[in-house]
């Protein structure tokens, strides 16, 4: 099993580098590499026995830093989501070949984030993923790409450095013998140090959740990225904040988390509503999806910060599910934009008549995003809100309006594009797009009708976290 772990992690990296050097290898290589990675993720998922897949090798002896991987239930579910979305993205997006290489580099970084079991290794993956993401934006983005790239880099780096300080503090003030998760978790920091450590992590992870007000990089990031949606889909996968809170910030400084919990719940709820409000006002599809994503992550954060098993499981399920459907929506929007040459909502109307299958596919993903029962968006949202309800019914009630708002803004935009009086004839799904549609619909439906397959992997770990925090509810 060891070998598969490493192959899955580094195959995209190698394929990506090969594509950057020899772009003539073409899309086939990208699809093959990400396909194999997906199969590996699925194989590991299917063979999971409740025991995590682990590997450890000392990388830097004097400071006791390990190349340590640990793929537990949560990691497996997220690997599956990342691998599936990347595969679909490189399969469908119409981009220069080298861009596919950058996307593959990013996939390796993302898989590493979810597998790293050493805090420094995690930091390395967390930071290194920034480079391909930044380059995709800087090299292939729209007219204002440099400004967007600066904003993105600034937020990310400004977040990462407090995290680096927290990383040192958690080791040397907590007294752990190494940077391994197990050692650090056995020596959590306490007192006012815990507050500062958690705050350090909080800044870094809030940027990547993203939570208000640290979401400000996101709209321009999406709006300026390549219209194909490849970079947007990969960027959606890079929103690893919820996972990072779950795996690192909360267990390493539980006392700090307890200090900030009330504030965080309010911020999460506000984030959900505020972003939903902005999504109403969005004039183009990418901004709409960007704000929609922020809004949904706000709901997820509400569940996670509630600190009980249901809420945490819901948050992580929602994270994985939203990677697939939001990423998928970005890609579909990219295909539509290729046909209509605009991302704006309004000018092009009524294309359902000429492209019924495309319309159904879009509708399907929009429904998943809204949280229609039976599709993958519902179980996560429901559990997250259920968990939050247990500790703060009023806040949950207010945040719930974001779910209703999602239905309104997403359906309004959908209606404008597909349903109103036709002013444009576009072609329907190509065979390649049909394959894409079948795959993503299968995934979304499977997670929607049989969520237990995934939640049973997540739940034991959520319970452990809830226990650590004193039972939550």
């Amino acid at each position, binding site marked *: 099993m060891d070998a598969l772990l490493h192959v899955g992690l580094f195959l995209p990296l190698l394929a990506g580098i090969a594509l950057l050097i020899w772009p003539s290898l073409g899309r086939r290589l990208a699809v093959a590499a990400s396909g194999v990675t997906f199969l590996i993720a699925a194989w590991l998922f299917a063979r999971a026995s409740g025991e995590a897949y682990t590997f450890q090798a000392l990388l830097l*002896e004097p400071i006791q830093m390990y190349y340590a991987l640990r793929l537990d239930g949560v990691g497996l579910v997220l690997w599956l989501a990342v691998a599936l979305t990347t595969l679909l993205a490189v399969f469908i997006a119409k981009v220069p070949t080298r861009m596919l290489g950058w996307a593959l580099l990013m996939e390796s970084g993302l898989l590493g984030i979810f597998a790293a079991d050493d805090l420094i290794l995690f930091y390395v993956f967390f930071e290194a993923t920034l480079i391909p993401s930044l380059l995709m934006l800087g*090299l292939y983005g729209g007219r204002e790409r*440099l400004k967007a790239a*600066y904003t993105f880099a*600034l937020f990310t*780096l400004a977040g990462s450095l407090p995290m680096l300080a927290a990383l*040192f503090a958690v080791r040397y003030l907590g007294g752990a*013998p190494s940077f391994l998760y197990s*050692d650090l978790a056995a020596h959590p920091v306490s007192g006012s140090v815990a507050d500062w450590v958690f705050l350090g992590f909080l800044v870094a992870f809030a940027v990547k959740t993203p939570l208000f007000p640290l979401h400000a990089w996101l709209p321009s990031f999406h709006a300026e990225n390549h219209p194909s949606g490849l970079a947007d889909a990969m960027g959606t996968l890079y929103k690893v904040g919820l996972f990072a809170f779950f795996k690192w910030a909360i267990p390493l400084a539980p006392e700090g988390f307890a200090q900030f919990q009330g504030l965080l719940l309010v911020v999460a709820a506000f984030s959900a509503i505020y972003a939903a409000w902005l999504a109403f006002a969005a004039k183009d599809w990418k901004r709409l999806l960007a704000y929609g994503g922020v809004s949904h992550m706000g709901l997820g954060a509400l569940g996670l910060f509630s600190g009980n098993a249901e809420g945490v499981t819901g948050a992580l399920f929602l994270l994985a599910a939203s990677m697939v459907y939001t990423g998928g929506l970005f890609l579909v929007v990219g295909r539509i934009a290729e046909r209509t040459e605009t991302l704006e909502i309004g000018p092009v109307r009524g294309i359902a008549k000429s492209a019924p299958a495309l319309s159904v596919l879009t509708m399907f993903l929009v429904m998943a995003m809204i949280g229609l029962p039976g599709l993958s968006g519902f179980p996560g949202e429901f559990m997250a809100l259920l968990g939050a309800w247990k500790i703060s019914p009023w806040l949950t009630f207010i945040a719930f309006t974001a779910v209703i708002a999602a239905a309104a803004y997403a359906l309004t935009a959908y209606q404008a594009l597909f349903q109103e009086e036709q002013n444009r004839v576009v072609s329907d799904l190509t065979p390649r797009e049909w394959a894409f549609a079948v795959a993503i619909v299968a995934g979304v439906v499977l997670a929607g009708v049989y969520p237990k397959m995934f939640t049973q992997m997540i739940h034991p770990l959520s319970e452990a976290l809830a226990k650590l925090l004193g039972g939550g509810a």
Partner: protein
Amino acid sequence: MITLYILGAASTVLTLLGFFVPARVTRWLATGSVAASIVYLFFTWGQRQTAFGGLYVVDPISQGFTLVALLGVLWALLVGRSEKWEFSLLLLYAATGMHFMASSPNLPVLLIALEVFSLPLYVLATWRRDEPGFEAGLKYFLLGALSAAIFLYGIALHFGATGSFNAGVQGSGPLYAAALLLILGALAFKVSLVPFHWWTPDVYQGSPTTVSLMMATAVKAAGFAALVRVLNVQDQGLWGLGLGALIALTVIFGNLGALAQRESKRLLAYSSIAHAGYVGLGLYSGTGTAAIGFYLLAYLLSTGLAFAVLAAISQGDVPYERLRGLLYRKPLLGVAMGVGLLSLAGLPPFAGFWGKLLVFLEAAKAQQWGLLVLALLTSAVAAYYYLRLFNLVVARGEATEAAIPAPGAGTPVLAGQSAGGLSLATGRLAAWPLVIASALVVLLGILPGLGYRLFSPTPFAALSRPASTAPATLPATFAITSPSDGAELRAGEFSLQGTGRAGETLEVWDSGSRIAEVRVDERGGWSLVLPSLPGVGEHTYQVRRPGEGEGPSVRVRIVE
């Protein structure tokens, strides 16, 4: 010893031979002798040697810092080809001085070594023979002379306070503090810590780019080697505060200064100032030699890449705009520049990240939280200006300037610059150092242990061991078995040995400050070669579990 012989003999012989053979031959011989020294260093890595009654010592500090300095010189030799043979010769003399600087614990010898490598640099700074060149040379010379005087004053006070010319001897009182502060100030000039940095931007800009490259890398390595020896005293007191102030000022003004630049060489000059500040963080814990060494190596490779690319564009000024779209015009230069800049910015997975991480860890170990936070904040500023340049390099189109010589493409194109007889490296030669350095930056970024272990007291240990599962409860069975309590030892090298539970990590303390961490091997034993020569006098070595206050200890007396 052989390293010194090779370098010394080669410089002497070439001084005479240079008159009779073509410049090309001189350059090849100089390059060859530096390369031979490096190879010899590797073959004798980890072996210790003393000569001239302890005035010349080969130890991990000497080997590690010499390696960095020689690599810097080698690179300058490869990148900057001169039509005049003196150019290579002067570099060789500088290399000799730097090696001696890294290898002597004796203060007067350090001063001589400092002068030996500084004099050639004063000449090299004026190499372009134009107005900025003369300004650079004169500035460098005058301030260099001043710092040498300060150094000398410090040595005198040091002798007065301790009765010893050896660096790292523990003393006390205001005289001793003043001595250390003066020496610190003099060396701070060489490694350009604020406020001793004023010469740096002008000199880097006025000198040929290849010379700036060497000043930024090799000179810093030599300077920090001396600092590591001088500041290796247990009681920090006043110099600790002084160093803290220098570091704080350096990271703030170095980075802010860089932010305001519009010309690449000045940017790299300010960046070299800022980096000196980060390296300084490693001086606090007393165990930071390896971290400092690794940082300097990573910095050498990354900033060397940036300087080499600039040198390929012009030996003179390179305004930012000339870098626009470099990646598309000259892919190799673009990639090398990109890798160098990302590494300088401290992004993983490049070597520069680990350098930063390791010195920051040393600061954390020494509980210097204030400086650490300041260093982190300024790192964000640094990342911004490196990324700005990086963005220009990868920016598409809109190229305003096309005359950039291609590596491997024949005749150099000097864009309106008279390089004073210094031609550009444009042959195939210029390409492969760039490729090798870029590869090393990535390699050290992925496997930092490869570089870090070079600077540790026990290099070339097994690359990775299977992780032993940490035992849940540890019985209190660990001790120091050698030397015995109350032993009297002669100054020089010795090792501590002891027992412990297999796999655990123990801390070794010397008279109340932590000097090292050791890992107990499978058979329950450990041994530590002391990372530096302990000062004369009484020492209490204690071994502790991390986080615990006390542990078994031995008292030893070190005698001359």
